[in-house]
């Protein structure tokens, strides 16, 4: 058994990471810490997941959110999507394996992947609304969030949601408040089958290797780890039985990366735009310096008087 998440202590706690450990801060530049903290990660083993939604339940309880009671729409996803009050969601796919003709019920816990190269942070215009700690956690800081929704556009996984109540963006924090005091995320602690485990990224990769070996021995030749390099790797990873087709797991992106559109917007456009506007202003300034003002002359006024002389009252 993977070592379970220990019980919390109720004594006074010193957080184990904070402002000094920021690697990135949205719309601001920070000096990354000289020494990076050990990277942490959550590993979600889809092949062990029983879709019980304990992670959702624990997430709601720990984060004190209050999702709406919706209707049944003929599916198992409840709520029907991630919401500002539901940071994680089990997504169910009934997939008939064309090779075996067997039905496979693929159940994937959706939520923030805590990308090494976070698109949300890249897109965010509000200084300090999104931060990335050197241990890999990408967190939203609600006091700084302006609710613009750019993070949604930046995210390759469609995760953040804007609250209509306080107009700020919400997503999984990886339970940064728990991790800061040496705990594991609430979902990982609750997960009955340890389909969710938490530890250092290295430990998680190693644990995944064992799982993949087991899956291969059970006939899942393409079992593998989902740690997409397109976003620099993630701090939430999946073990998939069919790692060659992540998209069958309710549309998990095959090769996620920050959209080139967002890259263009937040990259070249940002600089080119400032340049264009600057050039326009400077050109005007220089033109003025060189040519001076364009003034109406006395002759012009006189010509006008002549022209209008007979008409003017």
């Amino acid at each position, binding site marked *: 058994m993977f070592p379970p998440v220990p019980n919390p202590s109720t004594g006074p706690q010193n957080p184990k990471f904070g402002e000094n450990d920021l690697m990135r801060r949205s719309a601001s530049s920070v000096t990354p810490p000289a020494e990076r903290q050990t990277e942490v990660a959550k590993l979600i083993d889809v092949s062990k997941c029983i879709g019980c939604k304990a992670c959702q339940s624990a997430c709601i309880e720990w984060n004190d959110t209050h999702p709406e009671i919706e209707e049944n729409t*003929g599916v198992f996803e409840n709520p029907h999507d991630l919401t500002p009050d539901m940071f994680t969601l089990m997504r169910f796919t009934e997939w008939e394996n064309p090779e075996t003709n067997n039905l496979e019920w693929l159940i994937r816990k959706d939520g923030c992947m805590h990308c090494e190269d976070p698109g949300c942070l890249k897109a965010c215009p509000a200084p300090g609304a999104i931060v990335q700690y050197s241990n890999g956690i990408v967190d939203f800081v609600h006091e700084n969030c302006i609710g613009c929704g750019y993070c949604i556009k930046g995210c390759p996984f469609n995760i953040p949601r804007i609250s209509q109540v306080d107009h700020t963006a919400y997503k999984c924090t990886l339970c940064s408040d728990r991790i800061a005091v040496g705990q594991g995320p609430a979902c990982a602690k609750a997960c009955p089958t340890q389909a969710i485990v938490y530890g250092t990224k290295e430990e998680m990769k190693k644990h995944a290797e064992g799982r993949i070996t087991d899956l291969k021995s059970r006939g899942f030749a393409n079992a593998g780890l989902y740690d997409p390099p397109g976003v620099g790797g993630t701090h939430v990873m999946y073990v998939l039985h069919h790692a060659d087709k992540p998209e069958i797991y309710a549309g998990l992106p095959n090769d996620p990366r920050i959209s080139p559109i967002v890259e263009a917007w937040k990259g070249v456009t940002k600089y080119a735009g400032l340049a264009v506007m600057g050039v326009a202003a400077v050109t005007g300034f220089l033109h003025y310096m060189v040519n001076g003002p364009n003034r109406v002359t006395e002759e012009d006024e006189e010509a006008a008087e002549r022209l209008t002389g007979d008409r003017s009252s």
Partner: protein
Amino acid sequence: MTNSWTDIKNTDLVIIMGGNAAEAHPCGFKWVTEAKANRGAKLIVVDPRFTRSASVADFYAPIRQGTDIAFLLGVINYCIQNDKVQWDYVKAFTNASYIVKDGFAYKDGLFTGYDEEKRDYDKSTWEYVIGPDGYATVDDTLANPRCVWNLLKEHVSVYTPEMVERICGTPKDKFLKVAEMISECSSPTKVMTSMYALGWTQHSKGSQNIRSMAMLQLILGNIGMRGGGMNALRGHSNIQGLTDIGLMSNLLPGYLTLPTDKEADLETYMSTRGFKPLRPNQMSYWQNYRKFFVSFQKAMWGTAATPQNSFAYDWLPKLDLPGYDMLRAFELMNQGKMTGYFCQGFNPLLAAPNRKKLTDSLSKLKFLVTMDPLDTETSRFWENHGEYNDVDPSQIQTEVIQLPSTCFAEDEGSLTNSSRWLQWHWPGGTPPGEAKNDNWIMAQIHMRLKELYRKEGGKFPDPIVNLDWAYADPNEPTAEELAKELNGKALATVYDTADPTKVLAEAGQQLPAFAALRDDGSTTCGCWIFSGCFNENGNNMARRDTSDPDETGAYSKWAFSWPANRRILYNRASADVNGKPWDPSRKLIEWDGAKWAGYDVPDIAPTAKPGEVGPFIMNPEGVSRLFTRGMMRDGPFPAHYEPFESPLGNLVAPNIRGNPAARVFKGDLEQFAETASEEFPYAATSYRLTEHFHYWTKHVHVNAVLQPEFFVEISEELAAEKGITGGGWVHVWSKRGSIEAKALVTKRIKPLICDGKPVHVIGIPLHWGFTGAARKGFGPNSLTPFVGDANIETPEYKAFLVNIEPIAGPVA
């Protein structure tokens, strides 16, 4: 459970059939994933639906609900035909070699002695041949055609893979794959565990479903083994404890039985409970019955129970019927024969079958008392909730008293889980409003009733006024006081019978264990199997030592496991005839030449010599039973019977409908749809979802979020046939009632081809009602039939017939 949750990690093969452990017991299912991850164990799921358990299984096979016996006897047949039997185990530890009486036979679906009028058997031929020495006759060579093994072989021969496919709808290749995987566990070093729950019990032949698997496990040599056993995944947190303490019509605590009114005195009562050994040297532990019984009587009536009054034998009520179970209670109510009813933490309006009958029955009571921490539909059965509870309060004359009780977080005591662990818990919250602990409520009822009898006199007050009630505060006994009573104490000094100089317990001391119980009135014990839970060492149920030498999964210093802190029942059978473990890597106990020792408390006398004393010490045979003699009402072997409402007739016994020995009340039979009914063509089944716990969690916002609204599950094929769309509304009705629900159309339910015809399955989860946070809804029990298992009267919730049609939406 014969084993424990943590023991499941030791298995090689898990079969989930008649249950859905991943959804109903997720944290226990963890140990399946551990076995898979660490031992390379495989998981098989056999279920009408592709459940969440199936989603993580190595192999899934579909089965039509209510045909498990045919499937399992098919597997037994496969094992016998292919010589996949653990012969040493079967020969030494089962009654395979016992010779059965000549009159016994099975023909056309019936065993010898059937009385159609009474729907019951004369079981006198279901017995061994008893030799002149008074012991059962055996043939160790298994050559005698009348030995149990040969009768069994003959009995299961009809269940060929072809027949299994016709009855169960399980494709032959899938059945054979399952049979092959299971049969591999006949090796002494490969062990299978069976995890089952209500999917097996809630049938008119539920007990026999379980027996079929138990027999298979014996044939494979998997009982008593680490990672093996028969593991009943109980539904509620203390349903095991309530059963152990015997809160049932016909039981006394510790599986003793209440006298019938034919047993006029204690000696007559004891004469049928002597349990004389059927083979030489056997322990036949029930020989101690009298000690358990007398100690119980002393716990009830203390000094008023004396040898002179046969320990107050007459004060026990005597049964005139096999039992007054819940179904009979509602039948009596419906007949107007009952005045009052108490529901303590139970919501029968939703939980019992045929809701219309329930409402009618409750409406005929003079009074109903409910005790719950949460609001229940039962306590509001008289309240109009539109179509969800369409009643007219003014027409209902029942007086209802609703008493608010505390919940787990606010009370103290022990609960017995499936592993038979009695675990203590502590209160941490202040109860809301005026909610009161059940201990206080029950004490108040007793004290006030006693006071009335003292003041006014009345009918036979003796057992009430003499009830032993020596609690520090009689108005509210503490959990510790009650726990100590359950454990039992010495009223006089108790000496060791083997060594009379050795004192087991001084007068007034808590008894160390049930071995110290006496039948002379010198000991008291509320529930003998719990004895040892709170002895002079203190409250053993509160133990929290997590040590587990060699990581066997026993955790023998954690809490207390009945009986005698034994973690795996029948653990003597984990070693061969000579006392060597079948599989050294799975050692539990072994014979060291002088005594039994190992990781667990031996399930045998510590010095009982191997080869002489059999491992199944509760049985007079000393071995387990493939043939149960007269102990089950519906036959010494299981036989396939269709559900009372079935889409096809019984293929092995065409003239038999349902279980011939199951009790059917007058009036209910007319409310069953006929076999292969055109009016009700679809096979329905009810079940729980992982997001909810029965009818409780609809009161919890989070769970209401996770599964907000009532729905039924149907196949894509049936949806297409009936024009039903996913998320649309449907109307589902049986011969007894009608419901409206959202439709969930899924690939996980597929039509089954049974005897050449497609059978559509409709799945109906049960968590909604008209109180709580979730959306109001119906439940399957508006539809289910009012009939129970032949032996224990568990209602047949898992197999019944309905019809379905799409509708625009609920009638507002």
